[in-house]
């Protein structure tokens, strides 16, 4: 029998190349060689993932090792319900969480909660100090605000779905243009057009004062 399964990767489709390599490994064809190819194809991506999380180069290398070792151990169980890359990122994420958990366990003793410590994991939770200082609801201003917010909520529902979703992601969830484009799978230009139109329509529906200038905000997309 010849060298069954030897081939060159079609580099324009890395996801299909990965799937092909995974299946070759699963049927035990040139297992080591194909796993090395899989490693070559993705290790930099995994390394960058850990670098972005703030790990040093050496730590990122170790965590990349750990991730691929888990891939090696679990590859036979991969059924291809999601793409290989999605699965790989999931393993990298789990490796990251394990590492964080390990470090937290080591540092657990001696940590005190500050009364001013409000930010956890990107989501701002109300600190005990803020809770104590929360104003009592009920003033006339607040009642008016509540009504206006209710009207804004209703006005948003009147927008076409994609325009509404862009507005929500931008103004309520605080995403950047690039992120909205990625979530909605549309171009940045379309995102901008939706936001422009959306604001105009909302202002018109709510009767708020509309300025004549342009809003200069985000210089990164």
């Amino acid at each position, binding site marked *: 029998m010849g060298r*069954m399964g030897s081939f060159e990767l*079609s580099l324009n489709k890395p996801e299909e190349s990965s*799937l092909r390599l995974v299946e070759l490994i699963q049927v035990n064809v040139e297992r080591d060689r194909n796993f090395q190819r899989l490693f070559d194809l993705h290790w930099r991506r995994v390394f960058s993932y850990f670098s*972005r999380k703030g790990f040093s180069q050496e730590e990122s290398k170790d965590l990349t*090792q750990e991730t691929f070792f888990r891939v090696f151990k679990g590859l036979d169980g991969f059924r291809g319900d999601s793409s290989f890359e999605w699965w790989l990122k999931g393993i990298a994420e789990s490796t990251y969480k394990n590492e964080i958990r390990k470090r937290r366990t080591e540092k657990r003793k001696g940590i005190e909660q500050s009364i001013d410590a409000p930010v956890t994991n990107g989501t701002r939770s109300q600190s005990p100090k803020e809770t104590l200082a929360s104003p009592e609801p009920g003033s006339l201003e607040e009642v008016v605000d509540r009504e206006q917010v209710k009207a*804004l909520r209703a006005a948003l529902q009147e927008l076409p779905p994609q325009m509404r979703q862009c507005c929500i992601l931008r103004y309520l969830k605080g995403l950047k243009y690039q992120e909205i484009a990625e979530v909605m799978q549309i171009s940045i230009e379309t995102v901008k057009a939706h936001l422009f139109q959306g604001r105009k329509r909302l202002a018109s529906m709510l009767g708020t004062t509309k*300025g004549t200038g342009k809003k200069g*905000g985000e210089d990164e997309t």
Partner: protein
Amino acid sequence: VTDEPIDPELDRLFDLLAEEERGEPDPVEHPGAATLSAYYAHTLPADQVPRVQEHLVACGQCRAQLLEHSQFMGSPTEEPEDNVSSFEGVAEWRRLKERMDREPRELYQGRNTHKDRPLRSWGTGNSVAAVLAVAFVGVSLYAGSLLRELKQPVTNMGSETLLASQRSLSTGSKVVRLPNFLVIEVQATRPFPKYQIDFEDSRGTLVETFNDNIEEDGTIKTFLPRRFLKPGNYRVIVSGVKGDSREQLGTYNVHIVP
């Protein structure tokens, strides 16, 4: 710089609404990795896309997953390289390979290590030891044969051959069940350093291209994985490639069956 019209009052209302919604929990049900992965890859059926988008707008958790995956898949130029060279990549692979090779032995040793426990008497101990020894030898032999079997390439994997005599579209369709090896007999007037295999669907759209080497027996053997092509009829075009020139060597009809 954005093109959004200035409207401080609208911004203030958005801030208030954002504040109201900040504490709201994510939806309880999520689309799952398979759906999100397909959405990211643009392979989700069109009728499911709006539902997923609506969910992504509402669910911070899934949104974060999608954005993180997008970053994960970002092109290398956008990634922090941190001076990692391909040389280091090779070294890292070697380190991983050593660990992969070491692991089965570690598992094997781990299974057979035992903690020292006090035995009631030497007689009982000897009997137990004898039984354990026999069991150990049996298990070792079985494990050894199992390991040998696992290390061997799977030989019951089938293959379908496209004969040189079938290399025209009028000779009928070859049924190929996935996963499988496709063996293509090549009869070229001159040798080529590379061979290209194109798969076109029934509408003539190029679906996949492989570049393969020729085997010593004059065939090209290529592996077609399970999720490689959708079931249906395909035209397989085999060409010899040398530099920029390409010579068509044969065209076959293939019917892919899942």
